[in-house]
């Protein structure tokens, strides 16, 4: 039996929850077909999370690619199909990448499993991001290094804690609906052990009565707690928080059944969501908006 799950027209961090809701009751060894024919747009989070879904399934899932040529072309530009072909049984139109002025892929979807991958990602993003961050997002030239640092730390979260490889992607686009500004978005998704299990593996750690995914996220993201006893650990996510605070950005991290967010004034997200459909690993999104300057 195959369970068909329709992908939403706009596949992003919020709408992906609907996919997970439909996916949650389906046994891991049961076939699923993700139908993306009517999907018109996908964020880096949506695409990396799709690949992550495939990693969680025991039975290779099927994916129907978008019918829209424009959408398919963008997905191709992000490198999505290259990885999807290995993880999914692909159906539907085969798309090729075409140039577009509306969105810029700063970093194609890239697998991250080891320290060397982080070096590769950081090297590539520095070459491409500097001029775009400065010219299009009005972000101080000095901040481009901070951006690469943030990306490095987000990726290292996979290497250090996930226990299996994940995905990273970076893109800029105009976020018309919510902001009317351009944004740069980093998505880092893995299907590893997740924050709760990672913290539980800390030697001698005592869990409180209310120990769950939400609390694990609070500990790791807000308080900088790590599974390692080394007091220097946990600085990566603290650094990410500091960077997004400085540039009025947003950080959200989903793990297991909870999602935590550092919410800037331009957004109306909630700080903590619990009892979400379960999903392995950790999924992180960092959004830095264009800076409004007096001209």
């Amino acid at each position: 039996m195959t369970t068909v799950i329709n992908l939403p027209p706009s596949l992003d961090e919020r709408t992906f929850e609907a996919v997970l809701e439909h996916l949650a009751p389906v046994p891991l060894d049961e076939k699923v077909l993700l139908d993306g024919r009517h999907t018109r747009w996908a964020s880096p989070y949506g695409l990396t999370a799709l690949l992550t879904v495939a990693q969680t399934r025991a039975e290779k899932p099927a994916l129907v690619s978008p019918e829209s040529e424009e959408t398919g072309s963008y997905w191709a530009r992000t490198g999505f199909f290259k990885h999807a072909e290995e993880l999914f049984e692909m159906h539907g139109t085969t798309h090729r990448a075409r140039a577009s002025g509306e969105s810029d892929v700063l970093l194609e979807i890239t697998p991250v499993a080891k320290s060397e991958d982080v070096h590769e990602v950081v090297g590539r993003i520095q070459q491409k991001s500097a001029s775009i961050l400065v010219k299009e997002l009005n972000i101080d030239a000095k901040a481009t290094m901070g951006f690469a640092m943030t990306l490095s730390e987000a990726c290292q979260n996979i290497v250090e804690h996930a226990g299996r490889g994940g995905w990273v992607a970076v893109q800029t686009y105009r976020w018309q609906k919510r902001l009317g500004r351009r944004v740069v978005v980093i998505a880092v998704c893995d299907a590893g052990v997740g924050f709760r299990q990672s913290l539980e593996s800390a030697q001698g750690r005592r869990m409180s009565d209310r120990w769950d995914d939400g609390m694990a996220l609070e500990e790791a993201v807000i308080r900088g707690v790590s599974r390692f006893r080394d007091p220097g650990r946990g600085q990566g996510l603290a650094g990410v928080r500091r960077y997004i605070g400085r540039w009025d950005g947003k950080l959200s991290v989903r793990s297991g059944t909870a999602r935590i967010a550092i919410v800037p004034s331009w957004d109306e997200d909630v700080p903590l969501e619990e009892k979400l459909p379960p999903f392995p690993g950790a999924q992180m999104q960092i959004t830095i908006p264009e800076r409004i300057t007096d001209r």
Partner: protein
Amino acid sequence: MINHIDLSTVLRRTVCDLYSDLVTRPTGAAVRDGIEKQLSELGDRSLTVIDFSHVGLLDYSCADEIVAKLLMRYADANAPRDAYFLFRGVSDSHLDAIETVLERHGLAIVAQAEDGTVVLVGTVDDPERRAWEAMLRLGRAMAVDLAREAEIEPEQVERVLGALCRRRLAMELDGGYVVVGAVT
């Protein structure tokens, strides 16, 4: 003896000859090992310039592995040798990562700007900062002179100077005290 360590060279030699960014903990740990190997070839007492000039990016994890852990090891009572460090070629973006990890551990370093001036970076209390700045103004100085210059009670000054030396921010030299970096 003053030793010079170019971190980009250590990075290429110990990790990968194509890298110019100091990112990830394993990279930081490997570079610190490389530094310690060089230190082990020096005498019991040494001043080493740790040069970031040719380093691209430094992330928090690497800053913690290289700067914080190096300092903690040599500021410890069981340190393998009496080693002091002067940090050179530190850019604003390097500084962001370095300051963060120093604050986390309550550490401080002496950094040298392009014009040769030296500054304290990190966590230093007020008497320590006054004593250090007095030392910088006076050059090599005796405790009694530093107490007067820094306006620190004479009975306090030995403790403050001891802390600065233990923290690798100053060193005893010919019976006096001198700021790390003032002797290069």
